[in-house]
């Protein structure tokens, strides 16, 4: 595992790390490569419909990683995910989010971003949005395989991003997507 801080330094300031999502281990990997000081204040935003389905998962998600558990199902949920993220941020936490909303199984590029990142940025425009590209983790253990192979995974942190004055949702999400893709090339 290697971390490259290509666009920003590992300063202990409040940030939202937004990353590509190819494997269930993604947030563990980001969490691991963060320096301990940053790690303690960083909480992953994860799907409650996955992490609350068994006591073990619940323990890992809630107690080990202190995840902000959101519900991906609009009709079934009682709390608004963006409101949960804002509450966590206001309590001082940095966040790890996967704006694609689900694992990308296509093997390349990015899925269209969900709007959560935009809504968060609109309400807390001062917080750094740091694109994070995770490479190779899906090659270590592709879906359906049982033996992981010890390839070197890299996590690249790109240049922080902010919502610009008057920027609309689509423009902003397109810019965030481009920033994440650019981070991939900066490895």
């Amino acid at each position, binding site marked *: 595992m*290697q971390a490259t801080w290509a666009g920003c330094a590992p300063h202990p300031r409040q940030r939202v790390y937004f990353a590509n999502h190819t494997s269930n281990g993604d947030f563990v990997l980001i969490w691991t490569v963060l320096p301990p000081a940053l790690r303690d204040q960083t909480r992953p935003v994860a799907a409650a419909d996955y992490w609350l389905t068994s006591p073990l998962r619940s323990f890992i998600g809630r107690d080990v990683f202190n995840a902000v558990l959101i519900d991906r199902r609009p009709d079934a949920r009682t709390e608004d995910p963006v409101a949960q993220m804002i509450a966590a941020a206001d309590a001082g936490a940095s966040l790890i989010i996967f704006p694609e909303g689900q694992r990308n199984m296509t*093997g390349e590029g990015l899925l269209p971003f969900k709007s959560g990142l935009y809504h968060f940025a609109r309400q807390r425009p001062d917080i750094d949005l740091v694109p994070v590209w995770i490479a*190779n983790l899906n*090659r270590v253990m*592709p879906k359906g*395989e049982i*033996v*992981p*192979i*010890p*390839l*070197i995974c890299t996590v690249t942190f790109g240049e922080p991003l902010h919502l610009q004055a008057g920027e609309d949702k689509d423009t902003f999400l397109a810019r965030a997507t481009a920033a994440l893709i650019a981070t991939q090339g900066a490895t």
Partner: protein
Amino acid sequence: MNGATADLWMLLLGLGGVLVAASLIGAILADRKGADNPVIENLNARIKAWWVMVILMGLALTFGKAGASVLFAFCSFAALREFLTLTDTRRADHMALAASFFVVIPVQYYLIWTEWYGLYSIFIPVYAFLLMPIIVALRGDTGRFLSRVAEVQWALMVCVFCVSHVPALLSLQIPGFEGRNVLLIAFLVVVVQGSDVAQYIWGKLFGRTKIAPALSPSKTWEGFIGGALTAIVIGASLSFLTPFTPLQAGAMAFVIVLMGFFGGLVMSAIKRDRGVKDWGQMIAGHGGFIDRLDSVIFSAPIFFHLTRFYWSTV
């Protein structure tokens, strides 16, 4: 402490002395020309890495065959990781990759440890070569079949087969040299690394004429010739450690340097093909693990076979 260990410690202490001197020079240079000078920064990072290597070599060689086998198995593992990370493999290759790590490496080093030359000399180049593509073919994905299989085969040859010939030196039986085989490893490593340093220094001082500008812009004829001559002198002067006469030791050093040089060229070509500058970032200032091993990789099997053929009874 027997004769071999005593000689080995002498060598390691000598190397330690050289490194102390090198570290001092590095510190003085950094002080005078500024620590930010990239050449000096690179030099000091190299010196630090050599410290680590000398200490590790000392540890492993002290523990004899088991220590060397384990050390080089880990080298193979780290190198294979780097190599396969850079390859463009697919999901259909997963089982072949897993087998490379968890079957081929242990089997090869087990065979080295049991000294079964007849099998470890062909296990990877013949058996892994023929069987690996079967695993891949059975998954039915034939796109870029040959180049995908080739990447795995190259990774195994370079990172496992070639590297494993370093500890294999311990299995040779040279009359009058019993119990001293670890010194052959020390000879190989010191000549290779000494030649690397010498080529680097000669190249920095007098390098003009590039040998292969498209592949490796830092390789010059001046650096290569100066480095090769230096390595031959180092090799000849270390002949007291080996079963070779000074002349033979110098000739061996020349073969080692030549193969190391060619190995470096081939590994550069593979890196260019992949569009990367270094294999990884494992050792500060040395790029990846393979970047440090590449000169040993090609010379180890040749040095092993020459020594085995002309000096060993098995």
